[in-house]
């Protein structure tokens, strides 16, 4: 039978293994952040707008906007119990910047495409720039409980192939 010195020696070895494993995992995540293997991990810069005065912002008329310089921005407002717009058409193979803001309570959205998962805290703008490669229709749903109509709050992203 093992004595307690031997067990403690093994256990110290195991402690070292655990610490090394943790440091390797941390290094792995940092590496994927720096190289953007997983896009958007540095997140969007924090920006707050007053959710009761969205009419004075670019969210006044939600939807897709193409600027004269060719950059594509989409503005979405989440409020109980719908996304405005709830269907968004974006061109494939073009960088699109998506802006989300919640107007009343916390909502959330995960897009099946492009590693987007946002917790939409009222007024805190979430911004993601993504290039959607494959054309198709992707339906998702509000993913933070927001009240009795939470399950009816769906969002459709349609990625259109260039004509």
């Amino acid at each position, binding site marked *: 039978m093992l*004595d307690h010195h031997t067990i403690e020696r093994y256990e110290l070895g195991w402690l070292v293994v655990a610490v090394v494993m943790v440091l390797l995992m941390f290094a792995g995540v940092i590496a994927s952040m720096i190289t953007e293997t997983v896009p958007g*991990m540095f997140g969007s810069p924090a920006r*707050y707008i007053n959710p009761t005065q969205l009419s004075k912002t670019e969210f006044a008329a939600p939807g897709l906007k193409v600027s004269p310089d060719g950059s594509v921005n989409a503005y979405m407002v989440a409020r109980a119990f719908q996304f405005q717009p709830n269907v968004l058409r974006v061109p494939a193979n073009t960088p699109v910047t998506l802006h989300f803001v919640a107007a009343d309570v916390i909502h959330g959205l995960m897009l099946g495409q492009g590693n987007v998962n946002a*917790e939409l805290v009222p007024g805190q703008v979430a911004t993601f720039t993504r290039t959607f490669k494959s054309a198709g229709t992707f339906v998702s749903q509000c993913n933070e409980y927001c009240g009795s109509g*939470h399950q009816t709050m769906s969002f459709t992203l349609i990625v259109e192939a260039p004509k």
Partner: protein
Amino acid sequence: MTTAPPPTVSAPASPAEQVYFGHPEKKVTLYFLVTGLLMLLIGVAIGPLQALNYANIDVYQYLPFLKSYYQGLSLHGVLNALVFTTYFISGLLLYLPCRALGVRPNLVVAWAAYWTMTIGVLMAAWAVLGNNATLLYTFYPPLQGSPLFYIGAALLVVGSLIIAVQVIVIWTGWKRQHPGETTPLVAYMSVATWMMWVIASLGLVVEVVVFLIPWSLGWTKGVDPLLARTLFWYTGHAIVYFWVLPAYISWYALLPRQAGGVIASDSMARLSFVLFLLLSTPVGLHHQYSDTGLSIGWKTVQMLLTFLVVVPSMLTAFSVGASLELAAQARGGGGYFGWTRRLPWKDPVFTAQVLAMISFIPGGAGGIVNASLALDTAVHNTAWIPGHFHITVGTATTLTFFAISFWLLPHLTRKPLASVKMALWSAWLWFWGMIIFAVGMHWEGLIGIPRRTYFAGATGLSEMISRAQVPLALTGISGMVLAVAAVLYFTVIFRTLLGRTRVSAQAEVPIPFSQSLAEVEALAGNGGSPKIAGAVRVLERLWVFFALALALVLVMYLPTFISLLLNPHPVPGLRLW
């Protein structure tokens, strides 16, 4: 069977009180445990309805007393995760350290804690049952519930803090009377757990008392939802260690004796609890990776600290595994894996705990995924997350508490366990039910199915549901398995509690405080290691580690809180259910 009165002292008049004679704290402990289990019974009864929801079977429309799926989910989460655990832990971690130290707690204080909690729970229950706090157990503002809910939640936490302070005070008194002595392991771990909870509960207390109660009463116009979320998750992650550390105490310090062996390493057990005291709290930001408005820098630092909590968990796995192997060897087992056959699998106290540990292996691994900034985006707010916490708190903690109830209720009441066989069945079915549940939920999460969604009315899920038929069916089936497990478990518990037979004081189930291997060797004349003894002396200074833990939390959270408080964005409350 007759009850033998304790020798030399006159027995009290009432036969029921006789059971608690000599240890009147048994009664308050029993009240904490049984009230907790009654809350669990209600919470668990709603569970199968939630599971059937995933299988697209809507039972809620037939239930007149529940207004919605979300009201049911609020009850399920609040009662199971918050109320049951707090009661059970308060009873357990009052009784065990007091018995280990040989000190009787102040019963007036203990009962005051019990009634504070109970009044709080009744207030909160009134609000939730009346559909006036359908907020789910995370109660994020701006969704605004009845003030009764928030006041009740605060009283629940206050009750647990009364017990925390009482145990810490008892321990410091014991230290004064026993200078130079090492705290018994169970008491040491209990004190470390309570110290951690004192630091960790601050976030919830401030959120509820400073912000939510005045706001729900209409005294303030708004609450900053991001600040509230940050305070909530400050406590909200550490609370999972408050749930799991009592299970660790049982695995480290009680299970070895229940398996017929000794604690493999006493000093490593103390080290892992000090690491939990230091690392449990300054990690809550990993629940907020998807919140814009918080700095990515602090999220990254807290990710490292979250990963580091893996270290004490790995130590626990090693140490407890070694203890079990020693126990099996003492029973004549051997070989690389063959020894496992010699363990007392017919004993539900043993088996339920080992199954709890096994569930914690995938549970912990999934936790690392959640803690990773790179992977969290793929699972945040999906069914993966409830899948994860049903094999951690729902199995590792709950099944261990089942095991504890199988010996502790007979110990406290001197009534034998009603049915060993039924207890064993309940443990195995709970384990497999939760494993099936977790497989289904993790799988659905990877497909993208959101958590907390009433499927019967969902408009955006049909495409995902068509790809998730198998896991959704698994979730539904697991709910049925768990329902059977719960019926068996509560049958055993109530038959035991309502049983008429009481064994004599001499035949009372003992508290299975285990000896450590080092102690056994010292008794055999091999001597202890001076180096290890030195480590234990350093670890004995829990107040120093408490101060360090507090300092670490301040460093990790103060900048975030200062910037949130300097730029407040209060919004009014809404009732949207």
